[in-house]
Protein backbone atom coordinates (compact mmCIF):
# COMPACT_ATOMS: atom_id res chain seq x y z
CA UNK A 1 0.00 0.00 0.00
CA UNK A 2 1.32 3.43 -0.90
CA UNK A 3 1.60 5.72 2.11
CA UNK A 4 -0.02 8.68 0.36
CA UNK A 5 -3.29 6.72 0.04
CA UNK A 6 -3.69 7.52 3.75
CA UNK A 7 -4.52 11.06 2.65
CA UNK A 8 -7.53 9.87 0.69
CA UNK A 9 -9.71 8.21 3.34
CA UNK A 10 -13.44 9.00 2.87
CA UNK A 11 -14.67 11.41 5.58
CA UNK A 12 -17.56 9.09 6.36
CA UNK A 13 -15.17 6.46 7.79
CA UNK A 14 -13.89 9.09 10.20
CA UNK A 15 -17.49 9.98 11.11
CA UNK A 16 -18.21 6.31 11.76
CA UNK A 17 -15.06 5.87 13.88
CA UNK A 18 -16.03 8.97 15.88
CA UNK A 19 -19.59 7.80 16.52
CA UNK A 20 -18.45 4.30 17.52
CA UNK A 21 -15.87 5.82 19.88
CA UNK A 22 -18.66 7.79 21.53
CA UNK A 23 -21.16 4.91 21.68
CA UNK A 24 -19.07 1.87 22.70
CA UNK A 25 -18.00 3.11 26.17
CA UNK A 26 -21.59 4.15 26.92
CA UNK A 27 -22.73 0.57 26.24
CA UNK A 28 -19.68 -1.02 27.90
CA UNK A 29 -17.90 1.42 30.27
CA UNK A 30 -14.12 1.12 30.70
CA UNK A 31 -13.72 3.00 34.01
CA UNK A 32 -10.32 4.61 33.54
CA UNK A 33 -8.88 6.48 36.55
CA UNK A 34 -8.87 10.27 36.55
CA UNK A 35 -6.30 12.58 38.14
CA UNK A 36 -7.55 15.74 39.82
CA UNK A 37 -5.74 18.88 38.71
CA UNK A 38 -4.61 21.81 40.88
CA UNK A 39 -7.02 24.04 38.97
CA UNK A 40 -10.04 21.95 40.04
CA UNK A 41 -8.80 21.91 43.64
CA UNK A 42 -8.60 25.70 43.50
CA UNK A 43 -12.26 25.94 42.41
CA UNK A 44 -13.29 23.48 45.12
CA UNK A 45 -11.40 25.46 47.76
CA UNK A 46 -13.05 28.69 46.60
CA UNK A 47 -16.48 27.14 47.25
CA UNK A 48 -15.29 25.69 50.56
CA UNK A 49 -14.06 29.10 51.68
CA UNK A 50 -17.52 30.71 51.45
CA UNK A 51 -18.49 31.61 55.06
CA UNK A 52 -21.39 29.99 56.85
CA UNK A 53 -24.65 31.60 55.69
CA UNK A 54 -22.83 33.34 52.81
CA UNK A 55 -24.38 34.17 49.45
CA UNK A 56 -23.25 32.51 46.23
CA UNK A 57 -24.56 33.81 42.91
CA UNK A 58 -24.66 31.05 40.32
CA UNK A 59 -24.95 32.27 36.74
CA UNK A 60 -25.72 29.52 34.22
CA UNK A 61 -24.81 31.52 31.12
CA UNK A 62 -25.38 28.76 28.62
CA UNK A 63 -28.20 27.28 26.66
CA UNK A 64 -29.40 23.85 25.61
CA UNK A 65 -26.76 23.66 22.90
CA UNK A 66 -24.13 23.26 25.63
CA UNK A 67 -25.80 20.96 28.14
CA UNK A 68 -23.34 18.14 27.53
CA UNK A 69 -20.52 20.37 28.66
CA UNK A 70 -22.04 22.49 31.38
CA UNK A 71 -25.12 20.76 32.81
CA UNK A 72 -23.04 18.12 34.67
CA UNK A 73 -20.92 21.00 36.00
CA UNK A 74 -23.98 22.92 37.16
CA UNK A 75 -25.32 19.83 38.93
CA UNK A 76 -22.03 19.06 40.64
CA UNK A 77 -21.73 22.68 41.86
CA UNK A 78 -25.29 22.57 43.22
CA UNK A 79 -24.61 19.26 44.94
CA UNK A 80 -21.56 20.72 46.64
CA UNK A 81 -23.21 24.04 47.55
CA UNK A 82 -26.27 22.38 49.10
CA UNK A 83 -24.14 20.26 51.42
CA UNK A 84 -23.11 23.53 53.06
CA UNK A 85 -25.04 26.30 54.77
CA UNK A 86 -24.87 28.65 51.78
CA UNK A 87 -27.60 30.70 50.08
CA UNK A 88 -27.65 30.12 46.33
CA UNK A 89 -29.07 32.77 43.99
CA UNK A 90 -29.33 31.78 40.34
CA UNK A 91 -29.58 34.42 37.60
CA UNK A 92 -28.65 34.34 33.94
CA UNK A 93 -27.68 36.99 31.40
CA UNK A 94 -26.96 34.66 28.50
CA UNK A 95 -30.12 33.40 27.01
CA UNK A 96 -33.75 32.76 27.51
CA UNK A 97 -33.28 29.02 28.06
CA UNK A 98 -30.89 29.28 31.01
CA UNK A 99 -33.60 29.42 33.73
CA UNK A 100 -35.09 26.21 32.31
CA UNK A 101 -31.68 24.58 32.53
CA UNK A 102 -31.52 25.57 36.16
CA UNK A 103 -34.91 23.90 36.65
CA UNK A 104 -33.61 20.74 34.97
CA UNK A 105 -30.54 20.73 37.21
CA UNK A 106 -32.65 21.35 40.31
CA UNK A 107 -34.95 18.43 39.44
CA UNK A 108 -31.93 16.17 39.23
CA UNK A 109 -30.27 17.51 42.40
CA UNK A 110 -33.41 17.97 44.52
CA UNK A 111 -33.69 20.70 47.15
CA UNK A 112 -35.52 18.34 49.52
CA UNK A 113 -32.63 15.86 49.38
CA UNK A 114 -30.54 18.40 51.25
CA UNK A 115 -33.36 19.70 53.44
CA UNK A 116 -33.31 23.09 51.69
CA UNK A 117 -36.23 25.38 50.97
CA UNK A 118 -37.02 27.49 47.90
CA UNK A 119 -36.97 31.18 48.74
CA UNK A 120 -34.94 30.56 51.87
CA UNK A 121 -31.83 28.75 50.62
CA UNK A 122 -32.23 28.94 46.86
CA UNK A 123 -33.89 31.19 44.30
CA UNK A 124 -34.06 31.16 40.51
CA UNK A 125 -34.26 34.77 39.32
CA UNK A 126 -34.46 33.74 35.67
CA UNK A 127 -33.05 35.53 32.68
CA UNK A 128 -32.34 39.26 32.48
CA UNK A 129 -31.75 40.67 29.01
CA UNK A 130 -29.13 43.34 28.41
CA UNK A 131 -25.81 41.56 28.88
CA UNK A 132 -23.19 43.88 30.39
CA UNK A 133 -25.75 46.58 31.20
CA UNK A 134 -27.88 44.09 33.10
CA UNK A 135 -24.86 42.70 34.99
CA UNK A 136 -23.78 46.22 35.95
CA UNK A 137 -27.32 47.16 37.02
CA UNK A 138 -27.65 43.95 39.09
CA UNK A 139 -24.32 44.67 40.75
CA UNK A 140 -25.32 48.23 41.63
CA UNK A 141 -28.81 47.57 43.02
CA UNK A 142 -30.38 44.12 42.86
CA UNK A 143 -33.78 45.09 44.24
CA UNK A 144 -34.20 48.02 41.86
CA UNK A 145 -33.58 45.78 38.84
CA UNK A 146 -35.21 42.50 39.79
CA UNK A 147 -38.85 42.69 40.79
CA UNK A 148 -39.92 39.04 40.56
CA UNK A 149 -38.23 35.64 40.39
CA UNK A 150 -38.53 33.26 37.43
CA UNK A 151 -41.97 32.10 38.63
CA UNK A 152 -43.39 35.60 39.14
CA UNK A 153 -43.03 35.70 42.94
CA UNK A 154 -42.09 39.24 44.12
CA UNK A 155 -38.56 39.15 45.49
CA UNK A 156 -39.69 41.13 48.52
CA UNK A 157 -41.46 37.93 49.61
CA UNK A 158 -38.28 35.84 49.35
CA UNK A 159 -36.22 35.69 52.55
CA UNK A 160 -33.02 34.84 50.69
CA UNK A 161 -33.07 38.19 48.89
CA UNK A 162 -33.10 40.26 52.10
CA UNK A 163 -29.34 40.20 52.42
CA UNK A 164 -28.54 40.53 48.73
CA UNK A 165 -28.67 44.22 47.86
CA UNK A 166 -25.66 44.67 45.58
CA UNK A 167 -22.60 42.80 44.31
CA UNK A 168 -20.85 43.79 47.56
CA UNK A 169 -23.01 41.19 49.35
CA UNK A 170 -21.95 38.34 47.06
CA UNK A 171 -19.40 36.05 48.71
CA UNK A 172 -18.67 34.10 45.53
CA UNK A 173 -19.82 34.33 41.93
CA UNK A 174 -19.84 31.00 40.09
CA UNK A 175 -20.04 31.61 36.37
CA UNK A 176 -20.84 28.74 34.03
CA UNK A 177 -20.21 30.24 30.67
CA UNK A 178 -20.60 29.32 27.05
CA UNK A 179 -19.03 32.58 25.87
CA UNK A 180 -15.70 34.26 26.56
CA UNK A 181 -17.32 37.59 27.44
CA UNK A 182 -19.25 36.27 30.47
CA UNK A 183 -16.44 35.63 32.95
CA UNK A 184 -14.83 38.81 31.65
CA UNK A 185 -17.90 40.91 32.30
CA UNK A 186 -18.27 39.59 35.85
CA UNK A 187 -14.63 40.52 36.36
CA UNK A 188 -15.23 43.97 34.92
CA UNK A 189 -18.55 44.79 36.56
CA UNK A 190 -18.43 42.93 39.86
CA UNK A 191 -14.86 42.10 40.75
CA UNK A 192 -13.13 45.30 39.66
CA UNK A 193 -16.00 47.46 40.95
CA UNK A 194 -17.07 45.62 44.12
CA UNK A 195 -14.25 43.14 44.76
CA UNK A 196 -16.46 40.07 44.24
CA UNK A 197 -14.60 36.74 44.04
CA UNK A 198 -15.21 34.91 40.75
CA UNK A 199 -14.81 31.25 39.82
CA UNK A 200 -16.76 28.68 37.76
CA UNK A 201 -16.39 26.67 34.61
CA UNK A 202 -16.64 27.07 30.90
CA UNK A 203 -17.06 25.24 27.63
CA UNK A 204 -13.82 23.80 26.23
CA UNK A 205 -13.66 26.34 23.43
CA UNK A 206 -13.02 29.32 25.70
CA UNK A 207 -10.96 27.66 28.43
CA UNK A 208 -7.51 28.39 26.97
CA UNK A 209 -8.16 32.16 26.60
CA UNK A 210 -9.23 32.28 30.26
CA UNK A 211 -5.93 30.91 31.60
CA UNK A 212 -4.37 34.42 31.90
CA UNK A 213 -7.14 35.39 34.35
CA UNK A 214 -6.51 32.27 36.46
CA UNK A 215 -2.79 32.98 36.46
CA UNK A 216 -3.31 36.59 37.58
CA UNK A 217 -5.58 35.43 40.40
CA UNK A 218 -8.62 37.27 39.05
CA UNK A 219 -10.41 33.94 38.56
CA UNK A 220 -10.12 31.51 41.46
CA UNK A 221 -9.62 28.54 39.14
CA UNK A 222 -11.96 27.58 36.33
CA UNK A 223 -13.25 24.17 35.26
CA UNK A 224 -12.75 23.14 31.65
CA UNK A 225 -15.79 21.43 30.14
CA UNK A 226 -16.63 17.78 30.89
CA UNK A 227 -13.15 17.01 32.23
CA UNK A 228 -13.44 19.77 34.81
CA UNK A 229 -16.91 18.58 35.82
CA UNK A 230 -15.68 14.97 36.14
CA UNK A 231 -12.78 16.01 38.37
CA UNK A 232 -15.12 18.13 40.51
CA UNK A 233 -17.55 15.21 40.83
CA UNK A 234 -14.67 13.08 42.12
CA UNK A 235 -13.48 15.76 44.50
CA UNK A 236 -16.94 16.32 45.97
CA UNK A 237 -17.46 12.52 46.15
CA UNK A 238 -20.62 12.58 44.04
CA UNK A 239 -19.86 10.71 40.78
CA UNK A 240 -22.38 11.43 38.04
CA UNK A 241 -22.72 11.75 34.27
CA UNK A 242 -19.45 13.62 33.59
CA UNK A 243 -17.29 10.78 34.95
CA UNK A 244 -19.30 8.29 32.88
CA UNK A 245 -18.70 10.41 29.77
CA UNK A 246 -14.91 10.50 30.24
CA UNK A 247 -14.53 6.97 28.83
CA UNK A 248 -16.05 8.14 25.55
CA UNK A 249 -13.76 11.16 25.67
CA UNK A 250 -10.78 8.79 25.87
CA UNK A 251 -11.75 6.87 22.74
CA UNK A 252 -12.73 9.98 20.78
CA UNK A 253 -9.39 11.60 21.62
CA UNK A 254 -7.71 8.42 20.34
CA UNK A 255 -9.64 8.81 17.06
CA UNK A 256 -8.41 12.41 16.77
CA UNK A 257 -4.81 11.45 17.54
CA UNK A 258 -4.98 8.58 15.04
CA UNK A 259 -6.43 10.93 12.39
CA UNK A 260 -3.57 13.41 12.90
CA UNK A 261 -0.92 10.67 12.80
CA UNK A 262 -2.44 8.98 9.70
CA UNK A 263 -2.61 12.28 7.88
CA UNK A 264 1.04 13.02 8.62
CA UNK A 265 2.21 9.54 7.60
CA UNK A 266 0.38 10.24 4.34
CA UNK A 267 2.16 13.60 4.01
CA UNK A 268 5.50 11.87 4.68
CA UNK A 269 4.62 9.25 2.05
CA UNK A 270 3.90 11.90 -0.53
CA UNK A 271 7.29 13.54 0.15
CA UNK A 272 9.05 10.20 -0.19
CA UNK A 273 7.52 9.55 -3.63
CA UNK A 274 10.24 9.30 -6.32
CA UNK A 275 8.86 12.29 -8.24
CA UNK A 276 8.58 14.27 -4.93
CA UNK A 277 5.88 16.78 -3.98
CA UNK A 278 2.63 16.25 -2.19
CA UNK A 279 -0.80 15.46 -3.52
CA UNK A 280 -3.18 18.22 -2.68
CA UNK A 281 -6.27 16.48 -1.40
Amino acid at each position, binding site marked *: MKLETLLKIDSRWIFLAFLLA*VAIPIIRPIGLPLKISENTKQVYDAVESVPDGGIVVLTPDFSYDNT*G*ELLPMLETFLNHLFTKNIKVVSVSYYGA*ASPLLMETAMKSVGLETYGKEYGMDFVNLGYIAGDETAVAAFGADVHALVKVDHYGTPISELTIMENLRSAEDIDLEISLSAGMNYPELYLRQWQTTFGTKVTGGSVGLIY*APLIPYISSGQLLGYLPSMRGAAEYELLSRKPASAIVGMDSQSLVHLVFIAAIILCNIGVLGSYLKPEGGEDET
Partner: protein
Amino acid sequence: MTSYDVALSLLASGLVLMILSFLYRESGWFSFAEHIVVGGLSGYGAAIGIKNVYYQGLTPLAQGQFWYILAIIAGLLLFAGLFKTLAWWVRVPTAIMIGTGIGLNMRAAVETQVTAQLIDTVRSINTASLTTNINNLIIVIGVCCVIMFFFFSTESKGALKPVGIVGRYFLMISLGSSFAYAVMGRTSLMIARFQDLLSYPNYYTIFLAVALVLYDILKQRKTS
Protein backbone atom coordinates in the same frame (compact mmCIF):
# COMPACT_ATOMS: atom_id res chain seq x y z
CA MET B 1 -42.36 6.25 32.43
CA THR B 2 -45.80 7.13 31.11
CA SER B 3 -46.77 6.62 27.47
CA TYR B 4 -46.70 10.42 27.12
CA ASP B 5 -43.04 10.50 28.25
CA VAL B 6 -42.20 7.64 25.90
CA ALA B 7 -43.79 9.46 22.95
CA LEU B 8 -41.94 12.71 23.71
CA SER B 9 -38.68 10.87 24.17
CA LEU B 10 -39.08 9.03 20.86
CA LEU B 11 -39.97 12.27 19.11
CA ALA B 12 -36.84 13.94 20.48
CA SER B 13 -34.52 11.08 19.52
CA GLY B 14 -36.14 10.88 16.08
CA LEU B 15 -35.40 14.57 15.51
CA VAL B 16 -31.86 14.18 16.88
CA LEU B 17 -31.22 11.35 14.40
CA MET B 18 -32.60 13.53 11.60
CA ILE B 19 -29.97 16.12 12.50
CA LEU B 20 -27.23 13.47 12.69
CA SER B 21 -28.32 12.14 9.27
CA PHE B 22 -26.38 15.11 7.87
CA LEU B 23 -23.23 13.06 8.49
CA TYR B 24 -24.44 10.53 5.94
CA ARG B 25 -25.86 13.02 3.45
CA GLU B 26 -27.94 16.16 3.40
CA SER B 27 -31.62 15.42 3.08
CA GLY B 28 -35.08 16.83 3.72
CA TRP B 29 -35.08 15.12 7.12
CA PHE B 30 -32.20 17.31 8.26
CA SER B 31 -33.86 20.49 6.97
CA PHE B 32 -37.11 19.54 8.70
CA ALA B 33 -35.43 19.16 12.10
CA GLU B 34 -33.28 22.24 11.52
CA HIS B 35 -36.34 24.42 10.87
CA ILE B 36 -38.01 23.11 14.02
CA VAL B 37 -34.97 24.20 16.05
CA VAL B 38 -34.89 27.70 14.52
CA GLY B 39 -38.66 28.18 14.89
CA GLY B 40 -38.74 26.92 18.47
CA LEU B 41 -35.80 29.01 19.64
CA SER B 42 -37.11 32.18 17.98
CA GLY B 43 -40.58 31.67 19.46
CA TYR B 44 -39.24 31.11 22.94
CA GLY B 45 -36.84 34.06 22.59
CA ALA B 46 -39.65 36.37 21.50
CA ALA B 47 -41.80 35.24 24.45
CA ILE B 48 -38.97 35.98 26.86
CA GLY B 49 -38.59 39.39 25.21
CA ILE B 50 -42.28 40.14 25.80
CA LYS B 51 -41.98 39.07 29.46
CA ASN B 52 -38.90 41.25 29.83
CA VAL B 53 -40.67 44.30 28.44
CA TYR B 54 -43.63 43.63 30.73
CA TYR B 55 -41.69 43.11 33.98
CA GLN B 56 -38.76 45.49 33.42
CA GLY B 57 -40.46 48.22 31.38
CA LEU B 58 -44.24 48.34 31.78
CA THR B 59 -44.39 47.33 35.46
CA PRO B 60 -42.13 50.20 36.68
CA LEU B 61 -44.08 52.56 34.41
CA ALA B 62 -47.37 51.44 35.95
CA GLN B 63 -45.85 51.93 39.40
CA GLY B 64 -45.27 55.61 38.68
CA GLN B 65 -41.71 55.60 37.33
CA PHE B 66 -42.85 57.72 34.38
CA TRP B 67 -39.35 58.08 32.88
CA TYR B 68 -39.58 54.44 31.78
CA ILE B 69 -41.75 55.74 28.93
CA LEU B 70 -38.45 56.79 27.31
CA ALA B 71 -37.24 53.17 27.41
CA ILE B 72 -40.51 51.97 25.89
CA ILE B 73 -40.32 54.58 23.11
CA ALA B 74 -36.67 53.74 22.44
CA GLY B 75 -37.56 50.04 22.31
CA LEU B 76 -40.44 50.69 19.90
CA LEU B 77 -38.10 52.72 17.67
CA LEU B 78 -36.21 49.48 17.00
CA PHE B 79 -39.17 48.47 14.84
CA ALA B 80 -38.81 51.59 12.68
CA GLY B 81 -36.33 49.64 10.56
CA LEU B 82 -39.24 47.65 9.17
CA PHE B 83 -40.53 50.79 7.40
CA LYS B 84 -38.37 52.47 4.78
CA THR B 85 -39.44 56.02 5.55
CA LEU B 86 -38.80 55.65 9.30
CA ALA B 87 -35.63 53.55 9.06
CA TRP B 88 -33.34 56.35 10.31
CA TRP B 89 -34.95 56.26 13.78
CA VAL B 90 -33.42 52.83 14.47
CA ARG B 91 -30.16 54.69 15.03
CA VAL B 92 -31.50 56.22 18.24
CA PRO B 93 -32.00 52.97 20.24
CA THR B 94 -28.87 51.56 18.58
CA ALA B 95 -26.88 54.57 19.75
CA ILE B 96 -28.34 54.20 23.26
CA MET B 97 -27.29 50.55 23.44
CA ILE B 98 -23.86 51.16 21.90
CA GLY B 99 -23.16 54.19 24.08
CA THR B 100 -24.08 52.42 27.32
CA GLY B 101 -22.21 49.27 26.25
CA ILE B 102 -19.04 51.18 25.34
CA GLY B 103 -19.08 53.15 28.57
CA LEU B 104 -19.62 50.09 30.76
CA ASN B 105 -16.98 48.12 28.90
CA MET B 106 -14.37 50.85 28.94
CA ARG B 107 -14.69 51.92 32.55
CA ALA B 108 -13.34 48.68 34.01
CA ALA B 109 -11.57 47.13 31.03
CA VAL B 110 -8.26 48.88 31.70
CA GLU B 111 -8.01 47.51 35.21
CA THR B 112 -9.43 44.05 34.45
CA GLN B 113 -7.97 43.24 31.08
CA VAL B 114 -4.83 45.36 30.86
CA THR B 115 -3.38 46.50 34.21
CA ALA B 116 -3.99 43.27 36.14
CA GLN B 117 -2.67 41.25 33.22
CA LEU B 118 0.47 43.35 32.84
CA ILE B 119 1.18 43.18 36.58
CA ASP B 120 1.09 39.39 36.40
CA THR B 121 3.35 39.43 33.33
CA VAL B 122 6.18 41.36 34.93
CA ARG B 123 7.65 38.55 36.99
CA SER B 124 11.07 38.16 38.50
CA ILE B 125 13.68 36.22 36.55
CA ASN B 126 16.07 36.28 39.47
CA THR B 127 14.50 33.78 41.86
CA ALA B 128 16.20 30.85 43.55
CA SER B 129 14.66 28.37 41.12
CA LEU B 130 16.12 28.22 37.60
CA THR B 131 12.93 26.59 36.24
CA THR B 132 10.82 29.46 37.59
CA ASN B 133 13.21 31.98 36.06
CA ILE B 134 12.99 30.30 32.64
CA ASN B 135 9.20 30.01 32.82
CA ASN B 136 8.84 33.65 33.85
CA LEU B 137 11.10 34.67 31.00
CA ILE B 138 8.93 32.66 28.58
CA ILE B 139 5.87 34.62 29.72
CA VAL B 140 7.56 38.01 29.30
CA ILE B 141 9.02 37.13 25.88
CA GLY B 142 5.75 35.52 24.73
CA VAL B 143 3.50 38.44 25.69
CA CYS B 144 5.84 41.04 24.17
CA CYS B 145 6.40 39.10 20.94
CA VAL B 146 2.70 38.36 20.33
CA ILE B 147 1.77 42.01 20.99
CA MET B 148 4.49 43.03 18.52
CA PHE B 149 3.12 40.51 16.01
CA PHE B 150 -0.17 42.43 16.04
CA PHE B 151 1.53 45.82 15.92
CA PHE B 152 0.70 47.05 12.45
CA SER B 153 1.71 50.69 12.79
CA THR B 154 5.19 50.03 11.39
CA GLU B 155 6.32 47.52 8.81
CA SER B 156 7.64 44.30 10.28
CA LYS B 157 11.26 44.41 9.13
CA GLY B 158 14.74 44.58 10.64
CA ALA B 159 14.78 43.77 14.34
CA LEU B 160 10.98 43.60 14.45
CA LYS B 161 10.80 40.69 12.02
CA PRO B 162 12.24 37.95 14.29
CA VAL B 163 10.16 39.31 17.18
CA GLY B 164 7.02 38.85 15.09
CA ILE B 165 8.10 35.34 14.08
CA VAL B 166 8.61 34.30 17.72
CA GLY B 167 5.17 35.82 18.45
CA ARG B 168 3.71 33.62 15.75
CA TYR B 169 5.27 30.53 17.37
CA PHE B 170 3.62 31.39 20.68
CA LEU B 171 0.30 31.92 18.96
CA MET B 172 0.54 28.53 17.27
CA ILE B 173 1.07 26.82 20.63
CA SER B 174 -1.89 28.74 22.09
CA LEU B 175 -4.18 27.90 19.21
CA GLY B 176 -3.14 24.23 19.23
CA SER B 177 -3.99 23.84 22.92
CA SER B 178 -7.18 25.81 22.39
CA PHE B 179 -8.20 23.39 19.64
CA ALA B 180 -7.58 20.44 21.96
CA TYR B 181 -9.97 21.88 24.55
CA ALA B 182 -12.52 22.68 21.85
CA VAL B 183 -12.41 19.00 20.81
CA MET B 184 -13.16 17.94 24.37
CA GLY B 185 -16.01 20.44 24.60
CA ARG B 186 -17.74 19.59 21.37
CA THR B 187 -17.30 15.87 21.97
CA SER B 188 -19.10 16.28 25.30
CA LEU B 189 -22.19 17.40 23.38
CA MET B 190 -22.18 14.29 21.23
CA ILE B 191 -21.63 12.12 24.31
CA ALA B 192 -24.65 13.70 26.01
CA ARG B 193 -26.78 13.01 22.94
CA PHE B 194 -25.61 9.40 22.74
CA GLN B 195 -26.16 8.83 26.46
CA ASP B 196 -29.73 9.81 25.72
CA LEU B 197 -30.06 7.92 22.43
CA LEU B 198 -28.76 4.70 23.93
CA SER B 199 -31.25 4.69 26.78
CA TYR B 200 -34.77 3.20 26.81
CA PRO B 201 -36.89 3.68 24.65
CA ASN B 202 -34.73 5.80 22.36
CA TYR B 203 -32.48 3.01 21.09
CA TYR B 204 -35.35 1.71 18.96
CA THR B 205 -35.04 4.82 16.80
CA ILE B 206 -31.36 3.97 16.18
CA PHE B 207 -32.33 0.60 14.68
CA LEU B 208 -34.78 2.38 12.43
CA ALA B 209 -32.18 4.97 11.37
CA VAL B 210 -29.55 2.31 10.61
CA ALA B 211 -32.11 0.35 8.57
CA LEU B 212 -32.97 3.49 6.57
CA VAL B 213 -29.31 4.23 5.86
CA LEU B 214 -28.67 0.63 4.73
CA TYR B 215 -31.74 0.77 2.48
CA ASP B 216 -30.46 4.01 0.95
CA ILE B 217 -27.00 2.53 0.34
CA LEU B 218 -28.50 -0.52 -1.38
CA LYS B 219 -30.82 1.67 -3.45
CA GLN B 220 -27.93 3.85 -4.59
CA ARG B 221 -25.85 0.80 -5.52
CA LYS B 222 -28.69 -0.56 -7.61
CA THR B 223 -29.16 2.70 -9.50
CA SER B 224 -25.40 3.09 -10.11
